[in-house]
């Protein structure tokens, strides 16, 4: 297919661009296969706006006489308006944008066409391999092994080719366990707590069905993570009733009789359309500027967004508590083990593991616990909060995770190497990107699409020193402790950086960040200067002796 076929009017002049908190600008609008480009024709302070078609969530058009107006709502939640003279031009442009922003085929997406303008210092596609992770693990314990049982994606289509499992469980057993777990997602190691040797595993629900089917290998596998005489905790992210109903469809949960050493805790975490509706309601509330205070607060409440945040943080704290405070191993799962399960396991690691609070460590966490673990990014992030089309599998699961990280960050502002911008960057790139990182729903699909060969990785770009410096938190001081966030409603806030980002001026907040950076930077430089002088003086004195 040629993109040119979809572009009937590639260029329009005298277009006026409206954005909140910016004066309207006149300029030229151009459409390319992947971008909408607006450039003001002013000689001074020329402005350009490049918008990926895939970032466009919805588009509305209306006419006053022959002046057409299109309102474009983006997946990063920004809203822009373009006034386009000429009815035909406007109609053409609107229909082109509509077509180009809803291309079906993944291989037509921009990452397959994007040619980087920067030198690749490190290929992000191989920056975070599970093999490396395993090597690190091997230096502290030998209770685990790396299995290649899934190398053809035949045992579990949504798992990566390799996984870390207890040493005593062979591949044959794993195949049997896979048959007993939804989608073949057998329990694998998610996190090993060096401090006390406890493990967090994740999986999908067991397929016990109505007649209470059991699987000896599954029992053996999970028990292999227990210290003798100690109990473990299964954190089921569904309410008990839902878990019980799941048996009718062949699913189920670990029954006490067969898992006597395990205590099951049900922590309800919402899924799918409930989250998506919540997202839509919240964004709607944030964009409606006609609200009075009561209406705003009641809409904020009714969106339930912060309720999800609180529930999620509570569940993550629980998992972390079982490991760190109770000294118990933990198995986390919901139904499929691709959404709420990953939210809980990854957040628990943010709380427990200082490495996950560094830039590199956080990237590794996203790769390991989300991308490789088979969170279906392409399905979940196909549409954002403005889409009118019927929802299928969209849900802001990853955004909720990012926001929870932001909430913890707010409470421990000196314990993270990265800043808020880094989290916002990830949010943006999961919905629309020039990089292939978040395409596909699992490693299997990514391999089939040959993404590592055909597209650039987000990490290749972001890990270059000049980019990294933008995402550095000036207040960072490595903190090796477990950080327990408060989940009291008073301690949680709306994530303004995402939800109010386009609805309020940011100048004053940016200036504050600038000041913070300057104060700390100057201090460090002074310290370095003093140290250097001291050294020189000491050297001089030894020379004299």
């Amino acid at each position: 297919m040629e993109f040119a076929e979809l572009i009937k009017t590639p260029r329009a002049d005298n277009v006026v661009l409206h954005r909140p908190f910016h004066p309207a600008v006149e300029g030229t609008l151009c459409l390319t296969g992947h971008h909408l480009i607006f450039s003001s024709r002013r000689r001074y302070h020329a402005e350009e706006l490049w918008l990926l078609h895939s970032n466009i969530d919805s588009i509305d058009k209306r006419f006053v006489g022959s002046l057409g107006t299109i309102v474009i709502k983006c997946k990063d939640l920004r809203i822009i308006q373009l006034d386009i003279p000429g009815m035909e031009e406007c109609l053409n442009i609107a229909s082109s944008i509509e077509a180009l922003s809803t291309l079906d085929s993944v291989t037509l997406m921009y990452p397959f066409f994007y040619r980087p303008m920067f030198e690749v210092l490190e290929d992000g596609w191989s920056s975070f391999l599970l093999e490396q992770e395993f090597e690190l693990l091997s230096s502290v314990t030998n209770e685990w092994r790396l299995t290649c049982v899934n190398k053809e994606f035949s045992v579990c289509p949504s798992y990566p080719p390799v996984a870390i499992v207890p040493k005593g469980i062979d591949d044959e057993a794993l195949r049997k366990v896979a048959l007993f777990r939804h989608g073949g997602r057998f329990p694998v190691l998610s996190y090993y707590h060096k401090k006390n040797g406890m493990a967090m595993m994740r999986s999908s629900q067991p397929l016990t069905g109505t007649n209470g089917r059991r699987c000896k290998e599954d029992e053996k596998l999970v028990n292999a993570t227990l210290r003798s005489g100690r109990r473990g905790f299964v954190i089921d992210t569904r309410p008990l009733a839902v878990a019980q109903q799941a048996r009718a469809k062949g699913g189920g949960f670990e029954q006490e009789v067969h898992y006597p050493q395990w205590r099951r805790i049900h922590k309800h975490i919402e899924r799918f359309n409930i989250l998506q509706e919540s997202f839509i309601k919240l964004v709607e509330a944030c964009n409606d500027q006609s609200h009075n205070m009561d209406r705003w607060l009641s809409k904020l409440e009714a969106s339930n967004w912060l309720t999800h945040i609180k529930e999620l943080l509570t569940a993550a704290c629980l998992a972390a508590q079982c490991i760190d405070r109770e000294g118990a191993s933990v198995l986390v799962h919901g139904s499929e083990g691709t959404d709420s399960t990953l939210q809980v396991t990854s957040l628990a690691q943010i709380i427990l593991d200082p490495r996950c609070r560094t830039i590199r460590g956080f990237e590794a966490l996203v790769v390991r616990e989300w991308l490789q673990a088979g969170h279906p990014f392409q399905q979940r992030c196909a549409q954002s909060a403005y889409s009118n089309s019927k929802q299928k599998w969209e849900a802001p699961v990853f955004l909720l995770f990012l926001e929870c990280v932001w909430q913890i960050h707010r409470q421990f502002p000196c314990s993270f190497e990265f800043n808020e911008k880094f989290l916002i960057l990830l949010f943006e790139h999961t919905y629309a990107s020039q990089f292939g990182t978040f395409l596909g729903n699992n490693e299997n699909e990514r391999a089939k699409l040959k993404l590592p060969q055909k597209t650039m990785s987000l990490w290749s770009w972001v890990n270059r020193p000049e980019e990294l410096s933008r995402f550095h938190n000036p207040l960072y001081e490595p903190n090796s402790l477990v950080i327990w966030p408060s989940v009291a409603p008073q301690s949680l806030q709306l994530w303004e950086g995402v939800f109010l980002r386009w609805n309020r001026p940011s100048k004053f907040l940016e200036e504050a960040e600038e000041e913070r950076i300057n104060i700390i930077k100057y201090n460090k430089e002074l310290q370095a200067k003093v140290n250097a002088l001291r050294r020189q003086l000491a050297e001089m004195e030894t020379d004299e002796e």
Partner: protein
Amino acid sequence: VSLPQVENVKLLDRYANRKAATGTLYLTATHLIYVDASAEVRKETWILHHHISSVEKLPLTTAGYPLLIHCKNFHVAHFVIGQERDCHDVFTSLLKLSQPVKPEELYAFSYNPKMSKESREMGWKLIDLKLDYQRMGIPNDHWEITDINKDYEVCSTYPPEIVVPRAATRAVVMGSSRFRSRGRIPVLSYLYKENNAALCRCSQPLAGFSARCLEDEQMLQAIREANPGCPFMYVVDTRPKLNAMANRAAGKGYENEDNYENIRFKFIGIENIHVMRSSLQKLLEVCEMKSPSMSDFLTGLESSGWLRHIKAVMDAGVFLAKAVREERASVLVHCSDGWDRTAQVCSLAGLLLDPFYRTFKGFMVLIEKEWIAMGHKFSHRCGHLDGDPREVSPVFTQFVECVWQLMQQFPCSFEFNERFLLEIHDHVYSCQFGNFLGTCHKEREELRIFEKTHSLWPFLLQRKQELRNPLYRGFTAYKELQPNTLPFSFQFWCGMYNRFDKGMQPRQCVLDRLLGCLSRKLTLEESASQLQNKLPFLDGPLPGEGRSSPKAGAAAAKAPTPPRDCGEGAAPALSNGLSPG
């Protein structure tokens, strides 16, 4: 005090499920002190008797007799005492101690820091309102400072010296005072030098359904004509229209546009002290809920109406500032008596218009001018003495919160930090200093607070290092503030209403970190230059040296600039050359 000390008292932590502390409770003449004996490090909890707003005995539990203490600074302490007798004794002692009957019993009259008589007196002279009027260019052709009220003939709740239009004769002033509730005539609060628009304040007119007063009309005309650049002036009634109308039946009310030449009359619906009191009560109930869900909290926050009221006050302040700055119009503001809502919105408008009021010194001036001098009834609103509980209302608290909300939107525009606001808020209730005692200037003179007590301000200035805002960009960086007042711009102030629930606050404090950097900066700079002197052959400047011009704000992004030390030097000198303390 019938019982100075009780052993084996438990202090419960409201949120954490941690084991309760066990220790000893002491009652002194001024404080309740609890010493935690179970902690590894000695931990003390001090509660000033004046801060206690209520003491309750709760039903007996297995642990003993619970005593719940609520404080005016939102501290809540839950003690459990072993013996019923002890509990009862503590209870009755605290009731007595927390509700003094006579002003002389207030802490300020016994508070005796080590300080010479001279410094104490200097302390009271630290803030001189005349200098602030001078800063505005007053006296000038249109405005004068008059001592017409020196015997409190015009108004018993105004200070002896007030600023009125030159064109208003004594007859006009006296006539107007008879037509204004409690004689609180229109006086100048702030003059915006750039365009001569003035912010004036008064109480409601005694207009009833049809009464007029020629002198009052002349007074408003004089105010309007003092600003020749604008053909009209605003008269803003900060009450809801219904309340103002109801007042007409009592012979009070609001200005009839037909009787006053070229005025634009406007209502801004800020609720009265009773609504605000019950709103705060509801808010505190929400803050004290035991493990509330998100929904419980947000619903409670909404139905308390607290943020709605904060927004109303802020909206009013923004309206005044805009009228003055953009429409170049003078504004006369009143509510009923002109000492609650009027004080809130006038001081807020000043803060928005003039960066001076965002400095340490300026903020003190603002409070002295709009609140203390103009007769905000601190004693009644804060319940300093045993009195009518219906007079208590968090009017000043709301003002402090509005300032905090502004700090959230403009983090680099205030010289002081959140702790400074909390300190002031604490001391408004503590009665430790004379500033906030009584209800008006006349009463403070009668109480002889200037002779017998200390002023708060020098004590706060001494602690500037910890109360400063490290992000402050200096006096000239921001002129007027134009805050966003959409509902989502207002946040719940956890640091105020849940301030003593440490577990709810961010666990790492950015402010401390930055203040630490600033104090280290000085020592580092010093040692760097000392070392450099020892190494005479080495040259090369300190990082950032030579770029330290005070205007470096804009360029700061690129080169490391030594963070500016925006102390008093930047603000117009208002000090009389006194050093605090």
